[in-house]
């Protein structure tokens, strides 16, 4: 009697295919991924029909994963170096800082795993980004709580937009496969849902920063402008080397 529920479940999963482009599926993927549905489709007797990746798709994916790893590395270092000077003056921020740091560390671990799994090389400027991120975090924390929060605001604004761009490209890719009658494998469903979850968490940090007086930093426009330009430049470079 053991195989019966499995068969039923796989039949149910195939009769209502998950479409990534609909809004209902989007909620489902970003918040509660369903492992039951995934095992149902992958152990199905009809193997999913997957399209080989084109060289340009591969190039996009490898540069996307590389830049994401570099970004999360920088984020963990920014929070690490911001925390001690900031908590000296504002001890009540300890839970917030440790919460944000833990999320960034989990993101970094996620991308480290993805890079190793998909054989993507890390950025060659790894040591440079480490030094710059530590300097940025420490420098803004020394300037005060408002500047530190403005730094978070600027960085997370750029990162949120950056992740959105990647998700958009991936959805186009996946939509193209669906239109051509190919299946979308677990690999890409998972990747998209991971990126969505991380994007949401980054935007949550943005909200925290604004709640904690990020926009009272003086001069706010200069600080965020410089940091955002720096972020954009770093993203551009990390996508390439």
């Amino acid at each position, binding site marked *: 009697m053991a195989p019966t529920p499995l068969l039923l479940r796989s039949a149910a999963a195939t009769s209502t295919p998950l479409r990534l482009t609909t809004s209902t599926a989007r909620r489902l993927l970003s918040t509660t991924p369903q492992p039951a549905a995934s095992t149902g489709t992958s152990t199905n007797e009809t193997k999913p029909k*997957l399209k080989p*990746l084109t060289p340009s798709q591969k190039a996009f994916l490898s540069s996307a994963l590389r830049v994401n790893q570099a970004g999360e590395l920088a984020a963990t270092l920014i929070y690490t170096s911001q925390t*001690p*000077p900031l908590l000296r003056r504002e001890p009540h921020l300890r839970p917030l800082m440790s919460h944000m740091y833990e999320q960034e560390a989990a993101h970094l671990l996620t991308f480290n795993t993805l890079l190793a799994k*998909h*054989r993507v090389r*890390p950025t*060659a400027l790894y*040591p440079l980004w480490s030094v710059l991120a530590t300097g940025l975090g*420490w420098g803004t924390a020394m300037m005060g709580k408002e500047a530190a929060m403005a730094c978070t605001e600027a960085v997370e604004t750029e990162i949120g937009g950056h992740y959105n761009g990647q998700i958009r490209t991936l959805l186009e890719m996946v939509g193209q496969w669906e239109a051509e009658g190919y299946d979308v494998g677990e690999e890409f469903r998972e990747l998209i849902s991971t990126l969505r979850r991380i994007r949401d968490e980054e935007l949550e940090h943005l909200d925290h920063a604004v709640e904690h007086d990020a926009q009272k930093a003086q001069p706010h426009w200069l600080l965020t402008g410089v940091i955002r330009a720096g972020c954009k430049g770093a993203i551009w470079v990390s996508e390439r080397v």
Partner: protein
Amino acid sequence: MPPNCAAVARLLLRPSTATATATSCPLRAIRAASTLVRPPTSASPQTTPRSLSQSHPRPYHSTTHPPPPSPFTPTESAILSASYAHVPTHGFTPSSLALGARAAGYLDISTSIFPEGAFSLIKWHLYTQRTALAGKKDSIAGFESMSLTERVEALTWERLMGNGEVVGRWQEALAIMAQPTYVFASVKELAELADEIWYLAGDVSVDPTWYTKRASLSAIYAASELFMTNDRSPDFSETWHFLRRRLAEAGEIGDATRSVREWLSFTASAGVNVLRSKGVPI
């Protein structure tokens, strides 16, 4: 009768033996038909780039999607694998290619689909030996229980043994690979080999050691390969010891740099903490 001539020429290029009838055909028709065995050019956008030099270096590796096609077309593979059998006697030379083309049932002239000549044969050797490593991994006894460095050593040794059959001709091949035209492709192939070995060994580091690991393994492999061409000891035992010594040296250097880095970062953070404890606002 041009259509018939084209058909005859096509037959000639297929694995067949009809040679005498070709005399009455204009050369043009034969040449036109010879394009059939050329790799597809830009006229067919559906096909992916074939040449090794055009492929992206170590791009995203999908675990579920179908792998990219071989960089060699079926015709090229047929001729090259037949030619490869002649390498121990005739070397990495155009004559091996011509013999291979004949053995595979093609005209001698069909080696013109390899504009790089003997280097194509070398590329074939490098490509097939590199891709064969994944299969050889399973035949290494106790691979799963080995440490990372032991795995790298075992895989590098397996790859060196892949040169065993052609080792008498390998110095020639190295000389061709060192020519300015081919140096880039050869170094890239070496880098891909180092990457393959670290990947198969199960290395998951994605920090700057990713680069140092691959660079040092490339250097060690290239040195061992050169050493092996002059090794006359039974079962290449001298090469085996040479490889072990080089890997041990690299390990020592790695340990030393790691210790220095650890000491530096500990001292720096301890210094900052001392200053903070003294009330310096940093």
